[in-house]
């Protein structure tokens, strides 16, 4: 006992000197780390490679990043913009296939990403139910699990489409969407456990973040069949930005209603009319009325290569992009190289999954002449992705949300690719 203070003092001293040394050598360490970054060896067959490590990282040669954003018209990026950012977009121009790496999944949160201890987190289900129940995360993980690969898209994705065409990248315009494998419990399993009363037709979902984000979910057939309470994303736990440890997932529905950090579900007989479904996430029409509960993300597609601000050379290119529909499967994607006069069906990458990004590809030989590249998605309901002109004719330009018009990329003679409204 007597030695204790001395011991602590000594430890403190050691810690202090250690940090002093660390501080003093910080520059050196940083330099070393920098030097270590891409460390190509002349001949990797003649040098032993790196040892196994507990948690993998991508090759130091890969630099793709999410793009920070602060809303329509605001400057994008990190650096000095970082404090204003409330979302970040996926670098879809750099991705292959359909899955978004979890670390690059787009973000949108309304008062930061909460740090939640999963052992302390609870989900309460109450309201118009026979019995109100509280679940721990571990309990939910013991229930029968379900998994599906599906896209998630912020309904504000491509909101700049309502404004004049800016010279931007596809990540700027379309980055607020991603695709993951989502794993969790079916909502139906939980609703059955609490015993939903006949008069329950809506459900409030509430997040445990500093925004306490709350949304009303209509209990339609689709939702009762497909909604999930997720704890898994691409095989591991949800990322904190994606709602760790629990989120609601409603395949095909606008991002905002997929409530993250889920702490409460309340069954009711009418929508709860939260700020997020009245003041926000409603689509203002030219006559001053607004669409409300416009939850489904309609069919949409975009060419990710070649795309905005890229530079291409004459010769062979494989046009590649993503198509998706919140109403089901993508059945066809047409691609035009002349601004929509002639269309050619693209190849669709299997498997084609309902309410999921579908990769399309089409070989193209660029002859060095001006070209306007477009893609058009058709889904299993027969819905055809509209032109911008047709969309704006009906909805005007004040909607903010749910822009899904055909995207045009103009390839200039010098090979520069530019955002264009054709």
């Amino acid at each position, binding site marked *: 006992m007597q030695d204790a203070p001395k011991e602590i003092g000594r430890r403190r001293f050691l810690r202090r000197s250690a940090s002093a040394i660390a501080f003093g050598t910080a520059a050196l360490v940083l330099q070393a780390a920098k030097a270590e970054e891409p460390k190509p060896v002349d001949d990797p067959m003649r040098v032993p490679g790196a040892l196994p490590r507990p948690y993998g990282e991508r090759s130091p040669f890969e630099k793709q990043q999410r793009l920070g954003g602060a809303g329509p018209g605001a400057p994008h990026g990190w650096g000095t913009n970082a404090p204003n950012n409330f979302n970040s977009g996926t670098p879809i121009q750099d991705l292959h296939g359909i899955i978004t790496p979890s670390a690059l999944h787009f973000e949108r949160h309304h008062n930061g990403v909460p740090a939640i201890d999963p052992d302390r987190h609870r989900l309460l289900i109450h309201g118009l139910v026979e019995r109100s129940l*509280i679940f721990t995360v571990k309990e939910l993980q013991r229930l029968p699990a379900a998994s599906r690969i599906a896209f998630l898209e912020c309904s504000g994705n491509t909101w700049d489409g309502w404004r004049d065409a800016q010279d931007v990248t596809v990540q700027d315009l379309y980055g607020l969407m991603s695709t993951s494998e989502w794993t969790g419990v079916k909502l139906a399993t939980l609703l059955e456990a609490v015993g939903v009363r006949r008069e329950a037709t809506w459900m409030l979902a509430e997040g445990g973040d500093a925004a306490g984000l709350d949304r009303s979910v209509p209990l339609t057939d689709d939702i009762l069949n497909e909604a999930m309470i997720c704890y898994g994303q691409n095989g591991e736990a949800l990322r904190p930005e994606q709602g760790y440890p629990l989120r609601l997932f409603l395949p095909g529905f606008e991002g905002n209603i997929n409530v993250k950090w889920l702490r409460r579900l309340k069954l009711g007989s009418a929508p709860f009319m939260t700020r997020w479904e*009245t003041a926000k996430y409603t689509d203002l029409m030219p006559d001053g009325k607004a669409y409300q509960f416009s939850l489904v993300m309609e069919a949409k597609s975009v060419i990710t290569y070649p795309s905005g601000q890229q530079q291409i050379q004459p010769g062979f290119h494989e046009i590649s992009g993503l198509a998706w529909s919140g109403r089901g499967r993508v059945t066809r994607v047409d691609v035009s190289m002349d601004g929509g006069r002639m269309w050619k069906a693209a190849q669709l990458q299997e498997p084609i999954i309902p309410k999921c990004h579908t990769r399309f590809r089409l070989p193209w030989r660029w002859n060095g002449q001006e070209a306007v590249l477009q893609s058009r998605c058709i889904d299993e309901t027969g819905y055809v992705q509209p032109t911008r002109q047709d969309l704006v004719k009906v909805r005007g330009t004040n909607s903010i949300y749910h822009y899904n018009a055909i995207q045009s990329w103009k390839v200039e003679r010098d090979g520069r690719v530019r955002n264009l409204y054709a």
Partner: protein
Amino acid sequence: MDGYATYMHKPMVAGIVVLLMALGVVSFGRSAEDGTEYGLGRPATDEEIRAWNIDVVPNGEGLPPGKGTVKQGAQVFATKCAACHGATGTEGPKDRLVGGQNTLTTAKPARTIGSYWPYATTLYDYIHRAMPFNAPQSLTSDETYSVIAWLLFQNQVIAEDAVIDAQTLPKVQMPNRNGFIPDPRPDVR
């Protein structure tokens, strides 16, 4: 949104029946009625539900005791809200809260509380849970009612001597109450 309620009712029941069959739940040994097939989850106590149940709906359910006036609200707003929303609720830099009447059909619509929000109760639900941005859930119910009173007065929705509480707030008629229509999409053909 009443149309939604009646429309949703039957499909929901049908959906649950289909689901129970699909999941094979009906073949489980225990009755679905007692909800204990899996023996997971524990009953929530009334006290727990009270603590978690913070939402407020258009008929006023969820509104706590307490009250506020425009005058008190002016003080609350000046000290806790004006830094982000401006001295009169119009200057920003964050969301504009006041004014904007007759702008919804123009090229620059201002979606404010007065011009756009359909329900006054939403103010309580949102402000109480999420504001001020740097200290959510820090306002007392009196402060919340007061700042709501001030915002509604600034938007010319209530009189300067109005008192806002659990009884009066749900009765406030918002100017854009009928400004919303249920999702008609697909609307572009």
